[in-house]
């Protein structure tokens, strides 16, 4: 069958169209890829935005308040007539509540991780693990309510000179909140330890406890430490529990029975007040925010680094 001129034209047009369609498809593919890449970059822009915002507002603050005063003055009274800009009391308050929280959550979280990974049957584990996760899903304002209206009155019966607002109740409640963070991450680390290590220890006659404490925990130690650091970072940045239950009195103290103020609670206090934007008083929250961001950044990066390393070891 010979080709007529017309069919030759038809075929070549069809080829051309197919070629154009292919080219369009390529362009479409590239456009989609560019859009997706942009979406992924939004997270990078977010970090840049956070750093920029904190610096833009904090730098004018540091032009008026020397870094020396900020770091060394033992008083924080920017909203009073007699102004002091020493961040130490806020850092001490944050440290105190976080230390109480981590002191509670570390042993409890690690013990439950060991129980879930080494003792619990798969069925018990399947029930307990998600149940524990619920603790992490409860809004922090609810924990704040709990700390102020339930935990503090209970503790007052045991410790009569406990103040109404205090670091202890806030810290303990925060500790309960971060238990699942520690238990879940630590359990991942324990679970990742190869069973051949356990079997070897059992073969040598070790009991379950000895296997857990002398073999599994040392092997998973880096992951456990990472979970502690992440929990600490979470406690340092936690806001509502301390804003509700720990008080608004910046105090340079390590006594958990007293009212204190954390960095986060101070930011809330100023946000709720009527301090005008653009004043030195208002800029304090960005200076405080910058310190808070830097502390959590360092903690997060250390923890991320450790987690990545132990993942590599047992893969």
């Amino acid at each position: 069958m010979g080709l007529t001129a017309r069919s030759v034209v038809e075929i070549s047009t069809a080829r051309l169209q197919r070629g154009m369609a292919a080219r369009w498809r390529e362009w479409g593919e590239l456009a989609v890829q560019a859009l997706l890449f942009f979406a992924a970059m939004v997270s990078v822009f977010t970090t840049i935005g956070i750093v920029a915002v904190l610096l833009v507002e904090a730098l004018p603050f540091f032009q008026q308040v020397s870094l020396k005063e900020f770091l060394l003055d033992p008083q924080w009274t920017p909203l009073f007539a007699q102004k002091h800009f020493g961040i130490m009391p806020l850092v001490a308050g944050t440290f105190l509540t976080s230390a109480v929280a981590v002191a509670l959550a570390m042993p409890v979280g690690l013990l439950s991780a060991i129980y879930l990974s080494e003792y619990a049957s798969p069925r018990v584990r399947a029930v307990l693990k998600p149940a524990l996760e619920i603790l992490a899903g409860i809004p922090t304002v609810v924990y704040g309510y709990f700390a102020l209206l339930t935990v503090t009155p209970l503790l007052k019966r045991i410790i009569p000179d406990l103040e109404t607002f205090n670091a202890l109740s806030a810290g303990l409640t925060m500790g309960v909140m971060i238990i699942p963070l520690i238990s879940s991450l630590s359990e991942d680390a324990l679970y990742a330890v190869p069973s051949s290590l356990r079997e070897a220890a059992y073969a040598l006659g070790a009991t379950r406890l000895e296997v857990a404490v002398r073999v599994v925990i040392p092997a998973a130690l880096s992951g456990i430490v990472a979970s502690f650091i992440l929990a600490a970072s979470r406690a340092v940045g936690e806001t509502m529990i301390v804003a509700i239950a720990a008080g608004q009195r910046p105090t340079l103290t390590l006594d958990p029975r007293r009212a204190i103020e954390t960095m986060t609670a101070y930011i809330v206090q100023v946000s709720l007040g009527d301090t005008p934007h653009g004043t030195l008083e208002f800029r304090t929250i960005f200076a405080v925010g910058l310190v808070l961001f830097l502390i959590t950044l360092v903690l997060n990066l250390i923890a991320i680094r450790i987690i990545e390393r132990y993942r590599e070891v047992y893969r």
Partner: protein
Amino acid sequence: MGHRQRRELLGKLFEGIALAATVFGLLVLAFLLLDVARRGLGVLSWSFLTSYPSRFPEQAGIRSALLGTVWVIPLTALFAVPLGVAAAIYLEEYAPRNRLTRLIELNINNLAGVPSIIYGLLGLELFVRAMRLERSILAGALTLSLLILPILITASREALRAVPMSLREAAFALGATRWQVIRHQVLPVAFPGILTGMILALSRAIGETAPLITIGALTFIAFDPKSPFDKFTVLPIQIFNWVSRPQAGFHARAAGAILVLLAALLSMNGLAIYLRYRSQRRYQW
């Protein structure tokens, strides 16, 4: 008692302590819920849901807070979900293994650990002031979107990773382009997982208080928001406000509002668990 017996006994003792530690959190949780229910159940009524806040505890309700939450959360989903899923698709399906990708991943991991109140400071300067959105629903939703983005990306990546490679390879072998493979093969299979992640991320957003206080969401709103540019309050802020007052009447109102918030969270999580269960049954490889 023999040496071996003593070691076994010690082991039993330890098992008991470890179990007690595991149950401890759950007991506290049960205690918390009972405590809130005891104080808050008496408050729940139709008028509690439909009244504006008030200076008088017995008249105060959560109407404006509930409406605020109902406005903010879907808007947050509208902004955050497409961005989060798109970012996850890029990182799972396209991204080359290079330093930029490493940086993006490290950055997302870190953002997940940035305190929520810092997002509030960002929202205040970027959305409320620079973009002149004022203390609006829109500014709140944008702030919360950035906050839940890392959670969404991580959850969506896990859902995408769970899709077997063979599915992609089969489609590529038939001549499909990368985007065609993703759109017609990968996304439908990953959809239930992405949906679950979305619900979990939004249940984080629904309980967030601090960033919205920082951008200046108000505690006293006695009107119904009509557009995304209106001022607003949300349930957690209303709870915070009532808890912070000295009168026991307001504490009971706070407990009532907490019950409403927890009910919303519970139904969202129940839905997520149901979806996960259904998707596990549907696809078996």
